[in-house]
């Protein structure tokens, strides 16, 4: 989560589990950054904005693998080869 400081436009406040820190957003300002965005932080600088669409896609892939795995187990558990 972000809140941009008004007097220093190259700085923003980020929140990590309730801990707030000022970081420099000079490297991501060009692509547009706004409160509510998630960023990758490295040595006091925001390096990259997290793409929520991609993140969602990544999670869905993992969920699908998990689901397929569970389905397989369930199917084999139910199957009885006599």
């Amino acid at each position: 989560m972000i809140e941009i400081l008004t007097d220093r436009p190259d700085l923003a406040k980020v929140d990590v589990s309730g801990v707030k820190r000022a970081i420099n957003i000079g490297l991501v300002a060009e692509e547009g950054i706004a409160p509510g965005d998630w960023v990758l932080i490295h040595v006091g600088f925001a390096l990259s904005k997290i793409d929520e669409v991609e993140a969602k896609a990544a999670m869905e892939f993992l969920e699908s693998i998990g689901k397929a795995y569970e389905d397989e187990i369930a199917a084999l558990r139910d199957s009885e080869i006599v």
Partner: protein
Amino acid sequence: MSNATAPSEREQQVLDRIERARRRRAKVKEERITLAHGAGGKATQTLIEAVFLDAFRNPLLEPLEDAASFTVDGSRLALTTDSFVVSPLFFPGGDIGDLAVNGTVNDLAVAGAVPKYLTAGFILEEGFPVTDLIRIVESMRAAAQTAGVAIVTGDTKVVQRGKADGCYINTAGVGVREYPGPLGAATVRPGDAVLVSGPVGEHGVTVMLARGELDIEADLESDTAAVHGLVADLLAATPGVRAMRDATRGGVATILNEVAKAAEVAVVVDEDAVPVAAEVRGASELLGIDPLYVACEGRIVAFVDGAAAGNALAAMHRHPLGRQAAIIGTVRADPPGLVLLNTAFGGTRICDLLVGDPLPRIC
């Protein structure tokens, strides 16, 4: 159905060689003292064993517990000392005065003693504001009253401007050991449970942030507190307490390693089970450090008979300082001297002593 593969023989030989190397007699290789020697980790241990223990060696010192236990004319006593050099002197949740009283009270408590009398030695820097000194002393008065101890003797020295960082305090404490049973790391054995009395890392992170160099804001306070009441409740309710330690610099992980080494057992901890406040987790991620190695000042780690674990936990929960106590692991026979961590993720790794202070990880 499992598919087990023994590690290659060569790897095993190397691991054995390492074990032998670790057991070799401690020797300080550096010519000068560095900050690492004060961090509570490997460097500190080596310094203590190679320099202090070597020179002062006697049966009361050898166990290297938080306090020394002995008997004088039939009275069972515990004696401890601690020095406080924290910077900044004042921080959210307390100040150096609180630490000075609580730290020593806690070292006596975990020896199974009722803390009675404290000394207070001050080393003050030329130019230190008297109002600050009064503030600190007032904290000590209040902390002593809460803990039920009296400060009965003391000393004051003043050193030139530039030394002593404002104010250093040393306290020593004596208590009466009322708990009849033996207590100490050497009694810990396989099957024992490991408990911690509350969330870890709060003091260390609070102080790091209070130094103000980091531009980080967090709603965190030091956990400094006198835990003798909690300890008394625990001992009263639970037969089978083997050992307790006050978790200070080096954090919980350091204590687990000290006990594992002293008792020649393995301590296996579940990462998920260790209570950590969300802000401590967040700040630690930002700083690149591990909360398990960060100092506390009001938490104890207790090793109890496995069968009594539930009892012990309930006893701690009943006390205001133990509401978030948790069982975090167990003691096994193998591999001796090591602390293993079952990660939240399901793997297992070693949790070794750090050499010095936790250094932030950058990648």
